[in-house]
């Protein structure tokens, strides 16, 4: 394997950033790397906005009674916080931003299968995001991010633009998924079979399958809601014989699998991070690969557990509750395999690894509390309390977003060609762990004691819990802001990143940082190292990164 190819040729070909400049070169680009970067900018902006609304919510809940906002505004705050974080940040986070950037490089391909469709997805995302934000200026939405009927069809807030925005975001997600499926099918290099793909590709593939199969149902549901608001089609209107519970079936047929659109790419990245920083072959490759597909399929069978107290029939309740437990199996398979990979490994505690270890712990908490909620009779007690809020924050934020930040720190040198300051990154990631638990652990406690979610006021006995939670949230907000700042500062002052700063064996580390326009030097062979074999690697390349030892190179 020629390590020289990676280091020496970066001088010859300009990187994708340098190859052209100016606004238009980005605005109409079809380069998947630039589109990935544009996604990243939009997503981080949306993240800061959604985070701001979260802090508003926590500030209001600092004391019982009205503090900052009215009860009606509070409803709008949690709605927009949820909608932004789900539709604009977590769902596109790893697949559209980071996945777009790395998937073709992981395959040694010059681009995704349909580059123009890829750009179109981005602009669909952007227009959806703008519509969603427009609804804020038109008076906001107070339905919750789930848009449940019949409230959403009768409230006089700006449901129409929000629904239209979510519809466009859905199609952006479908087209990204479609692109990824075809890219992974058709652009595998010679010598890379399905079971020689990096595990991140398995995760992205499973995610894309869900995106293509589940998101259209959301699209149609929102379309019906849209038509209901505009002309009153009546399908969800009980006064006309319509069925409001059907809306929830439609919605959760998408939105439960959507949870796996969020978590599968996170797991995919985790599999990658853990083996790279443990410098040990991933334990149980095929189990992790199959469990991704298994999770994708199972995710379609359990949507009814969101509807245990929504008027769903007893039979459906029992079936969905029983099926829900089965999701624990593939999730646990992954966690056990990660832990087995760490066993007796040469663990390097670089900042991406800190995020990865955090992920395992927080995901375990989030996943196990999910089992409580999947249990029918326990859920009747816990439904619509802060226990649920805390559970899905452990999964969506504690797992999906933590993985997103881990992946961002992992691929940042590749994307930008700069190393960020490592010490602050590690300290702040630990702060995230501390403040995140401070925010959400008290919510488990007060939820199980009966604090309902989405309430603007509360019983004084919950005061301490709410204050701890708010304190944690403020620290968390400041820390996450600083983390993004730390990354941005590296653009100015960071050291030049080596081609392979972490000692990875996947293809993206075999090209320069940042990669050239077509990802690898044109006309030269692409090295395909033995996947997850770290024996031949050592950290002694001239650029300060890892490289294959000269003699070990040809054995692979």
């Amino acid at each position, binding site marked *: 394997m020629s390590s020289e190819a990676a280091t020496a040729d970066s001088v010859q070909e300009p990187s994708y950033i340098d190859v052209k400049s100016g606004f238009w070169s980005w605005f109409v680009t079809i380069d998947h790397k630039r589109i990935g970067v544009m996604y990243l900018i939009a997503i981080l902006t949306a993240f800061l906005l959604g985070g701001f609304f979260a802090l508003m919510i926590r500030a209001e809940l600092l004391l019982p009674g009205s503090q900052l906002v009215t009860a009606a505004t509070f409803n709008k705050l949690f709605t927009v916080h949820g909608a932004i974080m789900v539709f604009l940040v977590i769902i596109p986070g790893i697949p559209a931003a980071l996945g777009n950037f790395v998937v073709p490089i992981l395959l040694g*391909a010059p681009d995704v299968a349909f580059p123009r469709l890829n750009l179109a997805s981005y602009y669909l995302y952007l227009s959806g995001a703008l519509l969603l934000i427009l609804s804020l200026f038109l008076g906001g939405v107070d339905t919750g991010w789930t848009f449940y009927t019949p409230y959403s069809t009768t409230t006089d807030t700006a449901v129409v633009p929000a629904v239209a925005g979510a519809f466009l975001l859905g199609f952006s997600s479908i087209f990204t998924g479609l692109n990824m499926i075809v890219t992974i099918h058709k652009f595998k290099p010679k010598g890379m079979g399905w079971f020689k793909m990096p595990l991140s590709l398995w995760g992205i593939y499973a995610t894309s399958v869900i995106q293509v199969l589940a998101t259209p*149902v959301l699209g149609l549901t929102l379309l019906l809601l849209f038509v209901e608001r505009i002309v009153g089609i009546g399908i969800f209107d009980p006064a006309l014989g319509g069925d*409001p*519970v*059907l809306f929830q079936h439609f919605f959760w047929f998408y939105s439960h699998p959507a949870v796996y659109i969020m978590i599968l790419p996170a797991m995919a990245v985790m599999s990658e991070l853990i083996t790279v920083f443990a410098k040990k072959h991933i334990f149980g490759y095929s189990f992790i690969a199959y469990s991704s597909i298994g999770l994708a399929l199972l995710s*379609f*069978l359990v949507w009814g557990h969101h509807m245990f107290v929504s008027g*769903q029939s007893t*039979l459906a309740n029992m*079936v969905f509750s029983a099926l829900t437990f089965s999701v624990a199996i593939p999730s646990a398979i992954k966690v056990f395999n990660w832990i087995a990979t760490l066993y007796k490994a040469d663990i390097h505690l670089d900042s991406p690894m800190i995020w990865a270890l955090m992920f395992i712990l927080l995901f375990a908490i989030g996943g196990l509390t999910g089992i409580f909620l999947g249990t029918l009779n326990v859920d009747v007690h816990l439904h619509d309390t802060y226990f649920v809020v805390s559970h899905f924050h452990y999964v969506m934020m504690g797992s999906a977003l933590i993985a997103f930040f881990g992946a961002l720190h992992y691929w940042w040198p590749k994307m930008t060609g700069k190393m960020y300051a490592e010490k602050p990154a590690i300290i702040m990631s630990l702060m995230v762990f501390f403040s995140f638990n401070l925010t959400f652990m008290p919510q488990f406690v007060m939820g199980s004691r009966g604090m309902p979610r989405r309430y603007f006021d509360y019983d004084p006995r919950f005061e301490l819990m709410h204050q701890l939670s708010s304190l944690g949230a403020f620290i968390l907000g400041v820390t996450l802001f600083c983390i993004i700042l730390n990354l941005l500062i590296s653009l100015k002052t960071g050291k030049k990143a080596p081609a392979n700063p972490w000692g990875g064996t996947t293809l993206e580390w075999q090209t320069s940082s940042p990669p050239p326009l077509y990802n690898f030097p044109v006309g030269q062979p692409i090295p395909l190292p033995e996947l997850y074999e770290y024996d031949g690697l050592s950290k002694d390349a001239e650029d300060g990164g890892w490289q294959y030892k000269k003699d070990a190179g040809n054995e692979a």
Partner: protein
Amino acid sequence: MSDHNDKDEKHDEPETDAIEQEETESEESSEESEASDTEESEDEQSSEDAASSEDAASSEDAASSEDAASSEDAAYSEDAASSEDAASDEELAASTKEERAKEAKASEPEPTSAHNNSGDDDHHDDHGHGLSHIASRKVLLGTFGALMVLTVLTVTATSVDLGSSMNLLVAMIVATLKAGLVCLFFMHLRYDKVMHTVVFLTALLFALLFVSFSLMDSSGYQQDIVWVEEAAP
């Protein structure tokens, strides 16, 4: 990264073998067969063989495609009965022969658009000329005819009282037959990569899942969502 080109080159030899084999096959069978048989139908048969051997995994598919084929066969045997049609068929055969010869010439110098390989490859396993299979006139017209016949059939069946659930069943069976014909022949699934059938069936499977779970639940709560005007807010 250019493994696809590599593969094409690699397949050059077996491809020519395949062409030769196919040609000898068709010669043999044309000796045996009647004069009214067109070459095109043989071409069709051999590609059908290839397709069915791959499709054999899903027995349902095979069964429905057999149905379709037999109904078409019936349609053609009627055609062939009149001597005029047979004559025109011969003309057709002659013209298609010329066309095929042209095609073969045109495709020779360029390996990528040549008669493609014999199918165990994940990347290229189509069975026709050029980039993908060409549907024959007979298949297209036959599918169209069958679809029209089935449409008339389903409209007529509605006027016969079989009990409402039986009527629904008949209508759905006919619709599914029609959908099958469209998929297999108009959409080329019969001759196409198995992967496309897998994608299609997966989508149907999930749609079915969606229907069945929702239906299982909806009858259970209907009594709870009846609108009572007096109780309305």
